[in-house]
């Protein structure tokens, strides 16, 4: 375990990414303190330039760009994390059951997850949010619905190999029931690939959430980075920073999560590192 942390934190990319993510999480948690008024509140005349009264200026309706960014961090992270947790929970169940029981159940569940990987998932997410009416909950549902299949496949693969190991066979012989074996013996050993895949899913969830919000399918009462870009796009010619700055926030956050995910992978599978 100690060598894991050494390998993980010896990577400068990982350290930089962790610094950025800590910052973003802190901003998201402290959003009501950092920007007490609503991010939708009109605070100044429209299009006031950056570095004036407001650090990043105001948008086309006179809303503070910085306050929007701060509250946007909260929205993006919250929705991405909730959606990922839901996808991981569901995907783990499906993958574990498929891998553990095999046979017809496995076939059926894997067909279903293949189906969800075949259909154009972003269009499916659009349809889902449009039908459920845009809100935080429907964003979480839509993102989770299109994100679980990779988790299911990873967990299934792990369960298949772990199931054949002696300690699991011993547990079966000892007469343990299926559920305690799955939860107590098999899944803990499948944790590391699950963590890597899950962390990459958070990045993907942020991208989906921002794209949906950009298209106007975001939660109407929650400020988000994608919404800011969508609101600013019509004024690209004269106020390019309204689009650029939230985009940089998304880029850095997604990049940092991807790098941490890769770092986790390298640290957990040191032999594959040179590939």
């Amino acid at each position, binding site marked *: 375990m100690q060598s894991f942390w050494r390998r993980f934190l010896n990577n400068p990319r990982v350290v930089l990414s962790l610094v950025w993510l800590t910052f973003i999480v802190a901003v998201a948690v402290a959003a009501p303190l950092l920007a007490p008024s609503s991010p939708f509140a009109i605070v100044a005349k429209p299009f006031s330039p950056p570095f004036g009264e407001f650090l990043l200026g105001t948008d086309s309706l006179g809303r503070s760009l910085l306050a929007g960014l701060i509250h946007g961090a909260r929205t993006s992270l919250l929705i991405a994390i909730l959606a990922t947790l839901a996808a991981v929970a569901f995907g783990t169940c499906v993958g574990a059951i498929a891998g553990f029981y095999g046979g017809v159940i496995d076939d059926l569940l894997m067909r279903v997850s293949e189906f969800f990987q075949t259909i154009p998932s972003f269009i*499916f997410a659009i349809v889902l949010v449009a039908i459920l009416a845009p809100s935080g909950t429907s964003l979480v549902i839509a993102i989770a619905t299109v994100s679980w299949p990779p988790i299911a496949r990873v967990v299934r693969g792990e369960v298949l190999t772990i199931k054949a190991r002696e300690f699991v066979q011993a547990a079966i012989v000892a007469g343990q029931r299926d559920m305690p074996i799955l939860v107590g013996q098999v899944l803990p050993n499948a944790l590391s690939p699950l963590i890597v895949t899950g962390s990459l899913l958070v990045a993907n969830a942020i991208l989906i959430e921002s794209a949906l919000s950009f298209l106007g399918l975001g939660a109407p009462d929650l400020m988000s980075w994608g919404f800011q870009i969508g609101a600013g796009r019509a004024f*690209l010619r004269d106020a390019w920073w309204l689009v650029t700055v939230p985009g940089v926030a998304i880029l850095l956050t997604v990049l940092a999560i991807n790098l941490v995910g890769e770092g986790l992978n390298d640290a957990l599978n040191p032999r594959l590192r040179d590939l």
Partner: protein
Amino acid sequence: MGSARLWRYVFRRLLQAIPVVLGVVVLNFLLLQLAPGDAATVLAGEAGGAPAEYVQALRQRFGLDKPVPVQLALYVKNILALDLGYSFRNQSPVLPLILARLSATLLLMGTTLVLSLGIGVLLGLLAAVWVRSWKDHLISVAAIIAYAMPLFWIGLMLILLFAIKLDWLPTSGMEDAAAFYEGWERVVDIARHLILPAVTLSLFYMALYARLMRATMLEQRGLDYVTTARAKGLSERQITLRHVLRNALMPVVTVAGVQVGSLLGGSVVVESVFAWPGLGQLAFQALFARDLNLLLGIFFISSCLVVTINIVVDVVYVLLDPRVRVG
């Protein structure tokens, strides 16, 4: 391979596609049940101002007074007969609306596929050849960044740079409608409009393929057949180009096939940024008009499109790699 066997393979793949298409129809039906109000108002385009008699006729036709399984059967029957309903917003049946947009989307997707595969494979190859040099690192860093950028934002940034600041390329649309270009001039005009959307959509996949290509090249290079080739006295260049490259390409082609669905989703976003008149922009418009039925139609047709392209990719794959058995 005998052509009879190939046809049998195509036939089998088509059979395998049936459950997927049926699944999408059932999914659409379930989505209709989720929508607020009864299905007939949704089918008629919700706030679309459909006449009351039409909504009533729809109720009859979809058997909305009957039990749910009967409704499902009727729905499946209607969709499989390619009756996707009528869009009152657009004053047109849904199917021709969608088909009219298909070619623009296919043009964008095709260009993206060629661009991202071509450049991605090349970059991955170069990175593997230059492994652990600064050039390799440069390619890897660029790929990681491209991988993390939201598509719509790349598009807007490219518009800002190349269309607004530099004024080299048009900001949106597929052609300059006011110019009435014909023949070759029209092709050039469309190509100029195509550059930014295609580059926007390509960057992500380029990064994906470059990273994958680099990894598989490095993996292949350690295998026995490379040692054999080296022992035979082939130059590194010959080994890379003639042996390693070919074997490393296959996983990339496989992944490219799997990515078709996501490519189509990406084109929705890119089309709405560039006002590219394809399926994606139609979806965007349907979204704004709350025309759920049109949206469901687009979802259905685009799923069918993905399934078709997957089959085509599989067949191409079999033709490319004689080792793949189609039994």
